[in-house]
Structure formats: C-alpha cells, structure tokens
C-alpha cells in the first residue's frame, strides 16, 4: 500500500479486493435526503455514523464513548488494528475529518481518505452497490493517543510557547465575535476546491497555512465550535505531513460555554 493519507478513486478501485482494506461510509443519513449509504455505496463499504457509533448523548452534549465500546463497534465491522481504513464522505467535508481524527485519536495507524468522496467516485463511474458486506468479527484494541488531542488545561499551560499556534477553523465572522487569546484564523473550508469538491492543491494549501503562521515546524492546535470543523483541518494538516497537530475536541463549547475562559 502507498503511504499517502489522501487516496484517489483510481487507487481505491485498484485496492478494493485487498484483504486488509476496510471502507467506511461516513455520509449523512437523513430520510429527507435521497442519498447516503442505503441508496448506494462503494462495494465493501460499511456505514459509519459518528453520532450513533462513536458518541453517546449526555445532558452536556455528545461525549465520546469509551475506547472499549468503540473497539467493540470496530471489531463488529471486521476492522483489525492493522487494517487499512479508507473513509469517504459526499465530498471531503467535516464528517470525514471527524472520523479521521477520531481513528487517529484511537491510535489507528493506517487511515486514508478518498479525495472528492462519493462525488468523485460516481463521477468516475466507478462501481456502486446496495449490498451490505458481512465481515468476520475481530478483537480490536483501542488506546487513546493524547498527542492527537488537546484539552483546555493543556492549551493554558502551553499557549505562551513560541512554537505553538492556535488555529481557529471557524468562519471569519465567528472568529471576529470572540476567539481564544492569540489564535489565528483560517476557516476549514479554505482547504476545499468547491468546483471539484476535492482538497486544493498541496502547494496552495501549504501557502494558506503558512500565511497565517501555521508552518510545519510549529505545533498546531486546531479548534472550532465543537471540534468537527477543526478535525477537518487536522486531517488536512496531516495530509501535508505536519508532524505535530492536536485537535481541541472540546473547542469553544468547552472553552467559553462550559468553562467561561477568556476570549479576545
């Protein structure tokens, strides 16, 4: 297998029958929208609903299920610790970013993302199906990798470091209404080519991040409102090879709404 996080339709078509490959469909499932896994999906793919499969609803908002509960779900999907997981969305939006970050947080080594997602797959007239694959269960072991994650206390302890960048990935009007002290802003969707529904060219992406000071030699903490849009930027930075990126999953809901910490 190649080492690239971002894979093309051609690459995925060529590897559909690989024994270690597992495909997860993270698209929205809304009965009002005639799309999503039930309508058709990539052969071999299983549905992956973040809210249903990874989070539990609590009075304070969605909370990540325990690593054991998530491991049980991944085991039932036939995913092993050495599986190559390919994720796809309608295009390449925040849902696939959230799933990517989550699997990296669970220490899964080999996670790929289909650039352009379902749109690219169907545009290329690649095969689709309504068949639901049956996989033999595995014994997945999930361990949280806290180097992929940040919490408020960690940010408060490290925010004065010259090699740390706080990157707010919300829209610029949200940023202007209040952000973490010292944070710079680059909206998550600045990474998207809206015409092709793919990520922008690597050179352009790198230039955009460097323009706001988020260079690869820095440790980057990304955040947004609830950690989903920032997870997308986390994914983009990892595709660019940034070695030190953390997603503040709690984001503004935790920093401002729950803890009342200062904004600027």
């Amino acid at each position, binding site marked *: 297998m190649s080492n690239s996080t971002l894979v093309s339709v051609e690459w995925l078509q060529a590897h559909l029958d690989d024994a270690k490959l597992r495909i997860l469909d993270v698209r*929205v499932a*809304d009965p*009002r*929208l*005639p*799309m999503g896994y039930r309508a058709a999906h990539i052969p071999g793919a299983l549905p992956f609903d973040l809210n249903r499969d990874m989070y539990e609803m609590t009075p304070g908002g969605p909370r990540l299920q325990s690593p054991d509960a998530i491991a049980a779900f991944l085991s039932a999907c036939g995913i092993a610790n050495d599986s190559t997981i390919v994720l796809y969305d*309608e295009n390449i*939006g*925040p*849902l696939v970013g*959230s799933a990517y970050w989550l699997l990296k947080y669970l220490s899964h080594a080999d996670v790929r993302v289909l650039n352009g997602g379902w749109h690219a797959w169907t545009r290329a007239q690649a095969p689709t199906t309504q068949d639901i694959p049956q996989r033999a269960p595995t014994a997945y072991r999930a361990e949280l990798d806290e180097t992929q994650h940040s919490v408020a206390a960690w940010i408060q302890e490290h925010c004065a470091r010259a090699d740390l960048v706080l990157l707010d990935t*919300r*829209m*610029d*009007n*949200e940023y202007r*209404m*209040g952000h973490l002290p010292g944070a710079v802003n680059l*909206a998550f*969707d600045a990474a998207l080519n*809206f015409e092709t529904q793919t990520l922008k060219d690597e050179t352009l992406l790198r230039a955009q991040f460097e323009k706001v000071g988020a260079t690869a030699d820095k440790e980057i903490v990304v955040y*947004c*409102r*609830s950690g*989903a*849009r920032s997870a997308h930027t986390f994914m983009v930075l990892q595709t660019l090879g940034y070695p030190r990126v953390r997603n503040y999953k709690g984001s503004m809901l935790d920093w*401002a709404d729950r803890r009342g910490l200062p*904004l600027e």
Partner: protein
Amino acid sequence: MSRWNPIIIPAPSDLSADETFDLKGEVCPYTFVKSKLALEMMESGQILQVIVDNAESATNVPQSLTNEGNAVLGCEQINATDWMITVRKK
C-alpha cells in the same frame, strides 16, 4: 448575553421558496452539511429556505453557503428561537 450576532438580511417580501428544510435540533457541522446537500438536490437558481434554532448556525451557515458560491438572500429571526436562512443556488 449571547456573543453571537448574526448578520440580519431581510428576505425580499415577494420571494417564494422552492424548498424548505427544517434543521431545528441540528448543530454544527450537520446544519451546513445538510443545507449543502439539500441544495444539491435542487436546480441552479432555485431558492431554499433553511430553518435553524440557534444563533450560531444563523451566523455560520450563511457564510458557509456564500463561500460555496450561492447567494444568501435573507437571514431573519422568525420567532424567539428560530432563524430562517434564504439562499439561491448558484
């Protein structure tokens, strides 16, 4: 007091929506992901009205849809809790 301050855009009074999509109870990122998917079901030039029930979505959904090239025609608070965003598909 909420720090959210959505930009109010009065929708034209003679406007008629082709589709209305109720996203009450949904939060980021599902609000703009589903708004975008609803637009994908429509023809260029058609008008979608989206209802959200939090000021944050009324702040970021219009900008997100604008970034994708659509024209936001209105963003108004329609009662104590709900906001109506009116957008013409590019």
